[in-house]
């Protein structure tokens, strides 16, 4: 009898199918769990701040995300379903996929001065600000410095709060 190839030599096909299943499984089966990182978060019955909150969710609470709609996540927390605003979580994770061209071929390696490394090395630093200032001499940093120099001494603020009948 002329059986299809799958039945004649099942071994390699099973290997390929098993690998494909492994590849697809996490996306299908794993409900995402997220940790609340911001204080003062509430669970709402609808994705709307106008609805009265049904529960508060403390920092560090792990919630199961059921779905996302715009800025809102429908979650399950301690057996209760409700909506949490995106502010409860940190900024969305950036992709960790490899850049394929760099992965396969490597990027061109060039000579780099130590100054360039220092400038690029730590993200947005005072050095990057200095370079930006040089590039934009018209930027009003002197005025921003004046705004930042405005301080309210602790004792003066306390007196202001007391005089205004506000909470200490």
């Amino acid at each position, binding site marked *: 009898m002329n059986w299809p190839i799958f039945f004649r030599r099942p071994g390699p096909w099973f290997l*390929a199918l098993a690998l494909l299943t492994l590849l697809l499984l996490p996306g299908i089966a794993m409900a995402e769990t997220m940790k609340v990182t911001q204080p003062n978060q509430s669970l709402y019955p609808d994705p709307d701040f106008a609805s009265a909150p049904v529960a508060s969710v403390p920092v560090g609470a792990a919630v199961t995300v059921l779905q996302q709609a715009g800025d809102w996540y429908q979650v399950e927390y301690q057996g209760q379903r409700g909506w949490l605003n995106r502010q409860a979580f940190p900024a969305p994770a950036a992709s960790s996929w490899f850049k394929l061209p760099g992965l396969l071929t490597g990027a061109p390696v060039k000579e780099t001065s130590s100054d360039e490394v220092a400038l690029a090395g730590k993200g947005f630093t005072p050095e990057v600000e200095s370079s930006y200032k040089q590039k934009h001499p018209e930027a009003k940093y002197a005025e921003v410095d004046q705004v930042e120099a405005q301080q309210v001494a602790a004792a003066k603020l306390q007196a202001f709060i007391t005089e205004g009948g506000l909470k200490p």
Partner: protein
Amino acid sequence: MRSHLRRLAIILLVALPGLWGCDAVTGFLPSEAQPAVSIAAVGATKAARASREITDSEEYYVGRAVATRILSTYPLYRNPAVTEYVNEVGQTVARKSPRPNTFKGYHFAVLDSDEINAFACPGGTIFITRGLLATCASEDELAAVLAHEVTHVVDKDGINSISKARWTEVLTSMGAEAARQYGGEAGSNMVNLFEGSIDDVFKALVVNGYSRGAEYAADVGSVKILTAAGYDPGALAKVLAKMEVKEKAGAGGIFQTHPPTIDRLARVKGAAREEAPSAAEVNRTQRFQKIVQV
């Protein structure tokens, strides 16, 4: 056939860890490919770290640059008594916010413009226009406006306006390996990314506005802060009602970047109280009127 299957299996084995965010790849590849993979893997680890929030100091430097842009558009209102008072009210609400401390603290300033507007720069520099200050009828209403802006800083709405692709590039551009890859352009590339980030935030602040959700969240945050500080939690509804009148009269500014004031008002008017203002609130209104004559 067998060789095809073997190739498929190898591709899957190599692809799987990458797709799941794991960097244990190099073991499967020939030795000559490993340096490139090593650089890419470091980049990917840094990209994964991009999911970390921007540091407080990075946020501060972005915020300073955004403030320079705002001050290029609106001049500072130079009235020391008013500036000092606005800072006192601002500090009173900031200390009761969920994020009372930023890298260099909160600072408040008044912009010399009739436009009704307010801006929160990342890191805690907050501007209110003379026009919006004049719209407030009491200290509690000023506190409500400043608490809304403080909540934008708390929620990092400005920083979250930086495009995800740009921020990922910032993170992958960091470190000596990436600097070697970018060569002599490593530093200027970072400055360009910094400039692009400032553009993103400035555009969100002044042109496009944040999402409606972020604005409603800032209103909710404001009411919470007012309550915690001892101000009238209904003060936000009061000032929004005044703003709505000006919006109907065709005012621009804040109304171009925020949800309709009537919608905002509908969500916070529940916090408004029926009873007459307390003696303390009357005192606060008097000190407001004495100082704020703009």
